[in-house]
């Protein structure tokens, strides 16, 4: 009888523990879910186009500005974004195109009629690499762990309660080995991210700011990117003229680049 009671007590305790554990699991935010919700704020769910104005600064002085139009769609295989980027300004770069479809990277110059394959390292040199901090489905390529809930300053220098997520690359071809991402605890907006190389070196810091209604959601219309090696090198990416846009699969083939017609 005593054994039965003890067994029953232990069963009740086990059930209680399981129940409490279950409740605790529901109470603790799911890092991967936060990451996916944050992705959905940065990335429209259907193919779209957006005009991007890039302003480069050195030691606080503007040194360059350029404008491009990005046409993006999530790929059926893998769910990652593929983008066709058309350079518009400055005049010397007008009409040049860059195609990014995973690690399939091509650069096309209409004056040389040459489609040149690029390595991820080559892409990291130019401004195009900054697209990675904007149009990328992080939840597809990274496993997220919730590190803390803490106060940070957002891109508009206001204090926010944020979840700090630690992202580790799960896809072999992910551009960054690790990312620290701060997501607004109130609404899953991405606020800040730090991108790291395999060596642990900080490559860039990004702040997402100026949230405005675009394509059905409040989305960041500016990203401030600070170079990890040279913090005095800053790029501001400003997004305007968001529009739903058909982006056919054929556009994402390097052989299509010479045929591309802006719409």
């Amino acid at each position, binding site marked *: 009888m005593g054994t039965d009671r003890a067994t029953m007590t232990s069963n009740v305790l086990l059930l209680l523990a399981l129940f409490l554990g279950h409740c605790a699991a529901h109470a603790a935010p799911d890092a991967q879910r936060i990451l996916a919700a944050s992705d959905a704020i940065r990335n429209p769910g259907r193919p779209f186009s957006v*005009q991007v*104005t890039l*302003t*480069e*600064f050195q030691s*606080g002085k*503007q*040194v*360059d500005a350029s*404008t491009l*139009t990005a046409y993006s769609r999530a790929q059926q295989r893998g769910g990652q974004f593929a983008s066709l980027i058309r350079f*518009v*300004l*400055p*005049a*010397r770069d*007008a*009409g040049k195109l860059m195609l990014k479809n*995973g*690690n*399939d990277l091509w650069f096309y110059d*209409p*004056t*040389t*009629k*040459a489609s*040149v*394959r*690029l*390595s*991820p*390292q*080559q892409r990291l*040199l*130019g401004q195009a690499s900054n697209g990675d901090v904007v149009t990328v489905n992080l939840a597809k390529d990274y496993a997220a762990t919730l590190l803390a809930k803490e106060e940070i*300053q957002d891109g508009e*220098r206001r204090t926010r309660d944020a979840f700090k997520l630690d992202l580790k690359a799960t896809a072999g*071809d992910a551009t960054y080995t690790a990312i620290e991402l701060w997501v607004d605890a109130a609404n899953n907006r991405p606020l800040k991210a730090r991108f790291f190389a395999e060596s642990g070196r900080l490559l860039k810091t990004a*702040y997402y*700011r100026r949230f405005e209604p675009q394509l059905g959601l409040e989305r960041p219309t*500016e990203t*401030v990117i*600070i170079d990890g090696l040279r*913090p005095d090198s*800053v790029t501001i990416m*400003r997004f305007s*003229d968001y529009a739903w846009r*058909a982006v*056919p*699969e*054929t556009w*994402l*083939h*390097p*052989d*299509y680049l010479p*045929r591309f*017609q*802006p*719409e």
Partner: protein
Amino acid sequence: MRLVAYFALCSHVALALMSSLPVRAEGIDDLDALALESAPVEDVTGKDTRKLFVEGALGTANQRFESGSQGLSRASVDFFYSTALTPGWRGVVSDRIDYIRPRDASSDATVNSLREAYLTWQQSGGSTVFEFGRINMRFGPAYGYNPTDYFRDGSLRTEITVNPLAIRENRLGVVAVRGQRLWSDGSFSLAVAPKLGAKASADGSSLALGATNNRARALATFNAKISERVNGQVHIYKERGLPRQLGASLTALWSNATVAYAEWSRGREPDLLSRAFAQPATTTKRNRFAGGLTYTTSRKLSVTGEYQYNGFALDRSGWNSAAASSGVPALKTYLMEALRRQDLASRGAYFIYATQESVGLNNLDLIAMLRVNADDHSRLGWVELRYHWSRVELAIQIQQQSGRSTSEYGLAPYRRSAQILAAYYL
């Protein structure tokens, strides 16, 4: 008690300050960055692509066969325009006018190059495309020599640079009709170019149809994405009077920092020496090949190394016997024909091409190139330093050609040259 509370408060504040110091130092940088404002958004909602620039160059060259140096000068206007005409239809015009001093012996000082003028129609979604007019159809992933670039011969009206990437900007297209079908992982295209002239004209205002369309030609190209990291092309080329040629090329992402490429072509045609001297056409079946790697460092340096092979070119013994039997003028004629055909003059060659962005200064770029004839070891070196603002570019170029007196680059009229260029984009 109040004293204890005071010390406790001070120690808390001190600890808080100490623990926040590194974060605060980083935070100050970030705050500076966050105070910056974006440049105004430009209105670029057009369906046209327009590029117009003027360029001037002044330089001097050290002559090999004459005493003293020679002044070099050039003024150019370059224009590209692409516009939507009706839904699905688009027109493209690309033209360039060069005024060159000293002028080439075989052409006017002022040369107009109508590079492209064609209409293109494409189905909604871009899966079917038709084009007709003068179209620049360039193929091949190699940097310095393209065996599968079947429409390269006769495509240059002026020789204003030795940089192969810049040469591509100035070449003429071929008048042709082309159709292409694209699908998600590949494409097929067929181009047919009729004969429209007999030979190149020295008239600077000529459309140069005799240079680009002096025989009927056709090219079928099949393009496939073989894997996430490998793309390939297969070509079948035919021109009137010669058997079909087969060509293929591959590009592969070798590693995170390396791209590999190779291209090959095989066919039966007259060798380059026979073409240079218009000798009776005895044809031989040979290969052309180019293959290389581009490696990019994390310090913004990209280096390409390439090996080039032309089975139709003179080999070392053929070159030496031509030099002994026909002399330097014959070798120069041979080299001129190789240049006209954009073909490799030696049986083998090595090519290195390096680019470095932001050399010491933001917006200051360096390009360096070296060509080495693998048979006679003569060399062509070329370096460019270019600074660009939003509408203006300034560049300095230095070139040197060296080798034995009867070698490929030892026969070049200039030993070394230097020039300053300025371009303004309107």
